[in-house]
């Protein structure tokens, strides 16, 4: 009996120890928001954006872009949180309704990222999906883009004013901003920082941003005084302000960089430039990043490609930063992000899956999201590097359009939750117009018989055997998309061979390196802030990033108009013109827009957008 008893007690003791270890830890520096069961409060419409910088006139976005920021800096557009009435900070247990007077100890944002970032340097980051939010909170931006209105507001810049044809932009920076090392932020820094996008091309380089910075005519750009830069561009660009809300608008103290370049000069080789060594060094050295930046947060810990921890900067130029810490980690996928958010592991999570967004809306989650136009499409190889491919023949591109029913892709791969479209701007986005949709509807409609007839015609004319090589990423639900498309194409007489695999080992090598594809699953991801550059990069006949070898003078002309469009109405008209050429020439087949953005715990307030889906936490606070 005693032995039985002892055994039982031993077991219980073991369980007791585990349970004790797993008990609630009330003193462990847990976040104010992370413990909340999120999301708890239904939102009226489920998709309200997080508070964005005020556009006080409340118009519909017809302003000439961009709206200059106020000069006095005190009418509510300031990024600084509104001060509380009392002199003393409110006690922690009191509800904090609007900002704070000082950083609130113990407050934390646990942020689930879409993909971890390798580098904190803006020249080594690549947009919202890979590190955008991490770096913007460290570097800050000159202008913050509001996707709702299409207008940018001054952040570290006081104003940005274009001339009549958008070839010249005058930037005024705020005074009194200092970097982490105490250096003053001056206008020349803007130019020097942007020029870094041309240095040390190689691994980790932000080619997308570099392409856009290339439109600045630096030889003729002037810095008349310490607070003014007069940008002169190679061409008129009415949405140039969006560039200053992106990585080029994140200013890196050039004096710190110069010193680092000196230090690394001895280690540089023909293959590995000093600029690249500096970028790599900054990726693992928080002190360097903190010395060279002036954003609301400093880097506290960094593990490249794994996690980043930011801590509130106590001398932020925009006033007190309420939330003490932000930890960015990577649960593994959009689904994992959403599940972990629901479980309360995170109070902010980046999502990018229509099925997850549908679940989040159903749960009444607070979302701040944006549609990425041309998010889902199929590229056609039209002779990259002189290849003799069947996609050159427009009848094949027409046949594919006839053969594929977007709703079948939606049902088979996305449970009917995908936002399908045949247009390059979806109806829910700012630049959609009835004219654009009218052009989009001119593309060949779903008609398997018509597709089959075209396939037979091409076979008869050219001796082509009907084969088509489709390359697609295997990321969920890539295999289902490929399978659905394969079935529809084969029903029209194509003989489809499919290559599925990871983006980095199959899609990029096949499409970019070897140009070994005839049709490929891809995405241009043109959001409100990047659509001009994105379409230009992918469709302009002379673009180095044109993966399809597509080129047409009408498209080049339409893209030129897009760059110069003066206001939202003009931009809509220009984009409609691009759509008309697209529907006629069929460079690729669009099938969906991709929604991406942040789900936030209901008590996280004041999150501001710096780009379409890049989020600034400088004004954010956690409501008790």
């Amino acid at each position: 009996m005693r032995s039985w008893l002892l055994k039982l007690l031993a077991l219980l003791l073991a369980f007791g120890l585990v349970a004790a270890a797993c008990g609630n830890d009330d003193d462990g520096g847990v976040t104010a928001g992370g413990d909340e069961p999120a999301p708890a409060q239904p939102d009226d419409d489920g998709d309200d954006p997080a508070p964005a910088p005020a556009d006080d006139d409340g118009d519909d976005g017809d302003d000439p872009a961009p709206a200059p920021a106020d000069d006095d800096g005190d009418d509510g557009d300031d990024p600084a949180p509104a001060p509380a009435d009392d002199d003393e900070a409110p006690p922690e247990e009191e509800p904090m309704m609007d900002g704070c007077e000082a950083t609130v100890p113990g407050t934390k944002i646990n942020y689930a990222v879409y993909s971890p970032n390798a580098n904190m340097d803006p020249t080594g980051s690549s947009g919202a999906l890979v590190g955008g939010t991490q770096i913007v909170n460290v570097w800050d931006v000159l202008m913050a883009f509001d996707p709702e209105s299409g207008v940018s507001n001054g952040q570290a810049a006081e104003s940005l004013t274009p001339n009549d044809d958008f070839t010249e932009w005058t930037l005024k920076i705020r005074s009194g901003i200092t970097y982490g090392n105490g250096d003053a932020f001056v206008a020349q820094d803007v130019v020097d920082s942007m020029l870094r996008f041309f240095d040390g091309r190689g691994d980790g380089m932000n080619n997308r941003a570099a392409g856009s910075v290339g439109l600045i005519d630096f030889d003729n750009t002037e810095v008349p005084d310490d607070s003014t830069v007069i940008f002169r561009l190679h061409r008129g660009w009415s949405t140039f302000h969006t560039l200053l809300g992106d990585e080029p608008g994140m200013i890196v103290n050039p004096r710190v960089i110069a010193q680092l370049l000196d230090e690394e000069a001895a280690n540089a080789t023909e293959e590995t430039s000093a600029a690249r060594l500096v970028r790599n060094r900054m990726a693992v050295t928080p002190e360097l990043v903190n010395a060279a930046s002036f954003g609301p947060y400093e880097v506290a810990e960094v593990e490249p490609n794994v996690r980043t921890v930011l801590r509130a900067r106590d001398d932020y130029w925009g006033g007190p930063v309420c939330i003490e810490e932000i930890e960015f980690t990577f649960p593994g996928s959009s689904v994992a992000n959403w599940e972990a958010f629901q479980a309360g592991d995170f109070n902010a999570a980046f999502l990018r899956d229509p099925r997850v967004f549908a679940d989040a809306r159903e749960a009444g989650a607070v979302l701040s999201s944006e549609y990425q136009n041309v998010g889902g499409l199929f590229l056609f190889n039209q002779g990259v590097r002189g290849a003799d491919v069947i996609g050159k023949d427009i009848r094949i591109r027409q046949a594919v359009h006839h053969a594929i029913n977007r709703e079948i892709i939606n049902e088979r791969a996305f449970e009917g939750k995908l936002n399908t479209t045949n247009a390059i701007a979806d109806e829910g986005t700012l630049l959609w117009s009835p004219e654009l949709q009218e052009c989009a509807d001119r593309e060949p409609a779903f008609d398997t018989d018509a597709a089959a007839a075209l396939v037979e015609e091409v076979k008869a004319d050219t001796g082509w055997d009907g084969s088509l090589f489709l390359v697609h990423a295997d990321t969920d639900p890539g295999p289902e998309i490929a399978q659905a498309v394969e079935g529809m194409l084969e029903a029209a007489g194509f003989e489809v061979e499919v290559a599925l695999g990871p983006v980095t080992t199959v899609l990029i090598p096949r499409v970019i390196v070897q140009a070994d594809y005839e049709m490929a699953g891809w995405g241009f991801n043109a959001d409100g802030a990047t659509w001009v550059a994105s379409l230009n990069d992918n469709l302009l006949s002379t673009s180095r990033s044109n993966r399809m070898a597509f080129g047409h003078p009408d498209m080049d002309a339409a893209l030129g108009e897009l760059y110069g469009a003066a206001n939202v109405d003009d931009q809509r008209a220009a984009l409609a013109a691009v759509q008309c050429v697209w529907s006629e020439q069929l460079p690729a087949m669009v099938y969906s827009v991709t929604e991406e953005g942040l789900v936030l715990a209901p008590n996280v307030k004041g999150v501001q957008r710096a780009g379409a889906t890049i989020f600034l936490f400088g004004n954010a606070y956690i409501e008790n």
Partner: protein
Amino acid sequence: MLRVIGLKLVRLVPVLFLVSLATFFLIDLIPGDPAAVALGTDATIEDLEAIRKSLGLDKPITERYTDWLSGAVTGDLGQSLRPPNEPVSDLLQRSAGPTLRLSAMALGMSFLIAIFLGVWSAHAAGNRADRVVSGTMFAFISIPTFLAGLLFIFFFVFRESVPRYLWLIVVGLVVLRLAYLAISRLWEDRSDVSGWAGYAIAMLVVAGLLFWVFVQWPDFPRTASHRYDDNWREQIRSLFLPALALALSEIAVFTRLLRADMLSTLQEQFVLSSRAKGMPTWRILFRDALRPSSFSLITVAGITLGRLIGGTVIIESIFGLEGLGKLIVGTGVIPKNYTIVQGGVLVLAVGYVLLNAIIDISYQYLDPRIRRGRV
């Protein structure tokens, strides 16, 4: 002891050479391009060529291997091909922590449960309890690790009331059983106070402890991606589910193994002698019979630990844990980041051999015959 370790290390050299050679050339057969990983979808063909040259990927495979090998023998495992090109040794060191903690916790849980169940099962061989344990172990061993992980997430994170109230039912059953035993003893012989009072006290202690666990039931996180380097309780909380998922099949293997060895040991003369001397059962089982029955268990545990350290990639992926498995497979094998794979395999092989050397040494401690045989 030093001689044993020395011999093991000497034997390690050809093993490591062959392993590294095979790994290197096998990885080269995988389709893909590490330069594409470095550049992403914004890459241009010119950038890819430049980066390939910069990373030495334009060199013949034999030259790349000898370059890597010459560095490795001097302790330099090279740099990751992925930006920001960190030293592989740093990446391995960083990833080893979470994996070691997870593996140790899984192994610890397996040991704790398997020793109790294995000994009990052997002691009660053939009766109903033994059959229940055996059946349960077959069920455990049949559940793939990934499925266990997903099931645990579903029940412990999103339907936490299910395991919690199941626990309450178990508490109730245990308490009822103890109450029944106490009353039976009391009914049989009121004068045997130590008998019935023991059950009564046990009932109260058990009820209290188990109910306390029910009340304090923790909120298990969906992911283990957060780091709690300075908070061991949070570490245990975040690693509990992945560790349990890994432990499930190990519990079954260890229990079956220990049961079989214990059954054999319990037939030995010295056990009979202990019984004849009137030693209590717990002492015979845990002090006399367990030690000589644990050779197979320890050997398998060593192999298991080695396997867990390098092979937890699936569970690490499900729970978002940035460990060694995810580093070697996700960051190394899939994108052909061969320096990480080579460095990782090398470190794992060394660890594996050292672990087995430690196990060999532990035999001497466990069995005096081996120890004295060497003297």
